[in-house]
């Protein structure tokens, strides 16, 4: 029951993330946190939907969005989610090296997504679509920017966890951390699917 069971002489249980009460608490608490995050993004979506036609003199969504690039970003993020699934599978099989490789692939894909998003925002600003332009632009940058900040935080977090795995190995203390970071990663992926639909696709069809 205590945090002290982590010197198990290499005998990790099948699901090391759920082996201790601390680990189970962490996973449950994190799911609850994601419940709160869902409400947070839900509210941001609601604000965006309420304001998305208020473009004033600024460029419209239809004019701004380049679907091929956004589609590429979507695919990158979806594949990164797949990579983190493989990382958790490797975790369950105690294949530490494979797990690290999949985690690195996850954050590399996350970084390329961020790169595309920064490029995209940069282009929009040069076309006169700034935070202060209209209610549409304010709610757009806040919603998509919140998501981007979540991706950036996830990249830093998973990066830090990789370093910890190198230092501490896979234990019943580090396993729950990897596991919840994977849940987090899936969550921001799901949020993006909604952004792709509500912001970009609906932006294109009016």
């Amino acid at each position: 029951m205590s945090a002290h069971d982590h010197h198990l002489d290499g005998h990790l249980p099948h699901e090391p993330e759920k082996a201790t009460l601390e680990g189970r608490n962490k996973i449950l608490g994190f799911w609850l946190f994601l419940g709160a995050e869902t409400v947070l993004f839900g509210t941001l979506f609601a604000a965006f939907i309420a304001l998305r036609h208020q473009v004033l003199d600024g460029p419209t969504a239809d004019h701004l969005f380049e679907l091929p690039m956004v589609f590429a970003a979507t695919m990158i993020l979806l594949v990164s989610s797949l990579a983190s699934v493989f990382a958790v599978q490797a975790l369950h099989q105690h294949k530490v090296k494979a797990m690290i490789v999949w985690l690195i692939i996850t954050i590399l894909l996350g970084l390329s997504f961020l790169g595309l998003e920064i490029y995209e925002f940069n282009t929009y600003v040069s076309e006169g679509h700034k935070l202060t332009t209209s209610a549409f632009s304010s709610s757009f940058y806040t919603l998509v920017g919140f998501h981007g900040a979540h991706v950036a935080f996830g990249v830093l977090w998973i990066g830090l966890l990789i370093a910890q795995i190198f230092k501490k190995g896979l234990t019943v203390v580090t396993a729950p951390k990897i596991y919840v970071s994977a849940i987090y990663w899936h969550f921001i992926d799901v949020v993006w699917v909604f952004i792709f639909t509500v912001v970009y696709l609906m932006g294109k069809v009016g």
Partner: protein
Amino acid sequence: MAAHAHTVKRYRGLMDWLTTVDHKKIGILYLIAGGFFFLIGGLEAILIRIQLIKPMNDFVGADTFNQLITMHGTTMIFLAAMPMLFALMNAVIPLQIGARDVAFPFLNSLGFWTFFAGGVLLNISWFAGDIPDAGWTSYVPLAGPMYAGGHGVDYYLMGLQIAGIGTLIGGINFMATIINMRAPGMSFMRMPMFTWAIFITSALIVFAFPVLTVGLVALTFDRLFQANFFETGNGGNAVLWEHIFWVFGHPEVYILILPAFGVISEVVSTFSRKRLFGYSSMVFATVLIAFLGFMVWAHHMFTTGLGPVANGLFSIATMLIAVPTGVKIFNWLFTLWGGSISFTSASLFAIGFIPTFVMGGVTGVMLAVAPADFQYHDTYFVVAHFHYVIVGGLIFGIFSGLHYWWPKMFGRVLNEKLGKATFWTFFIGFHMTFFIQHFLGLIGMPRRVWTYLPGQDFDTMNAVSTVGAFLMGIGTILFIVNVIVSAANKKPVADDPWEDGRSLEWSIPSPPPEYNFKQLPLVRSYDAWWNEKQKGNTEMPPAEPVGPIHMPSPSILPLVMSIGLFAAALGFMYDHLIVAIGGLVVTFGSMFLRSVFDDHGFHIEPEEQEKGVHA
């Protein structure tokens, strides 16, 4: 399991309080901080009432009056009522479910310190001279950059944002605690009613507070970065703020009142010496109230112009809440019915709560009638209504809970004579202040006005109301006197000082040792401790052998993280980007340290447990 002793530094004195992760100490910190803000909010209330004691009074100016009502409302709700509830939650929940601590002791400490940093930030606006003055609801455009220049509303936004982080953390923590940390045998339907109330309240916090977070972020962006969420001139929408605020704000009302319902259930049952009547219907009613609480936010906006269909739906949904609430009221009455009631201070507050809250509920149903609401809206009738449910409901509940659990929290019984004097002055003062405000509202006195002309029949009623406010002030002072008197009284307290305790917290010493339970108890029924006593047992049956107990280490990081957020907020407000970034670096740096350095905690060995390690 090798119980090897890690060298963990154990602090004493002030450092102990700054670094503690013990839920019992955090509960006391919440109580001190919440009590302090309660006094500030109370002082603001007294100043408001002095200004209104006679027509055309010039005790405070119009601007100061706006600041006073804004800070009074904001302080009382976010910095006084909620922290005092968190004080009771922290002090009682782990004990009631038979746990050694909450699921996340470190986060518990972080939750307290972020709340405190937010509260201090909001209140230093008084010294900065830039005080929020757009009402506790902070409606735009009044609170927007156009009509609220300066930094007043920024203090509101930043203070609540930081305090809100603490509340959200607390909600997640208590949900996880109640789901995962219950003692063996403590099924959901054996949980004490207060635990149920806190469980549902925590769920409300988790699903309501992020809405406020987004609202505050949006308004902050409008004010600091010239965004256009609520700027109608640039396509923004002022009604959006109202929706966001009340989608959060109405569940918030239930976040406040459900814990009070829980306290009343415990106190009524204990002091009637009867099992709570209709336990399972109580649980169901609580869940139903919480669910409906999310469906009714637009009843705050009947006069906004949402149209008859929306008004009709929200009107009916609001009236529906009266049904589960009525179930609870009748269950309390039936618990009292035929019980051998002892009228202690705690019991008096609980019994005083019932009719008072019913009155608040009745005016609530009156306000839910949308066409009639056009008459009541923004009058003193509304002020009377929400003070009946919040003071008459929540604050009576908190006073009841404090008198009830004080021996468990501090190892001292509060003086009954002073407790009863507190009750009668506060109870009479309360009804004197607010009952008459119903009629002030009905004859047309608008709320949030800093003064009024003579000859409108407002004068006498306002004077009576002000006298009542002073009586409530005296009641509060009597409570503080009681606290001091009881602290001076060194008489030790029994484990079960009321002798009729029903739940697990009364089966362990007062105050409990820092690990709470030497052996986790085996729960065999609802009202577990009462039933063991009925069987002639003097202690709970243990669910585990005696052994070393693992404890989490104290940490200063939560305090440091909160200071970082505090500095960052000031930096953003006053355009000192270096301070802002520095503050965030401190906060995220602390998170980094927390992640990298594992907390091994320490063990308390059985020999040490015999000596009795006191909290």
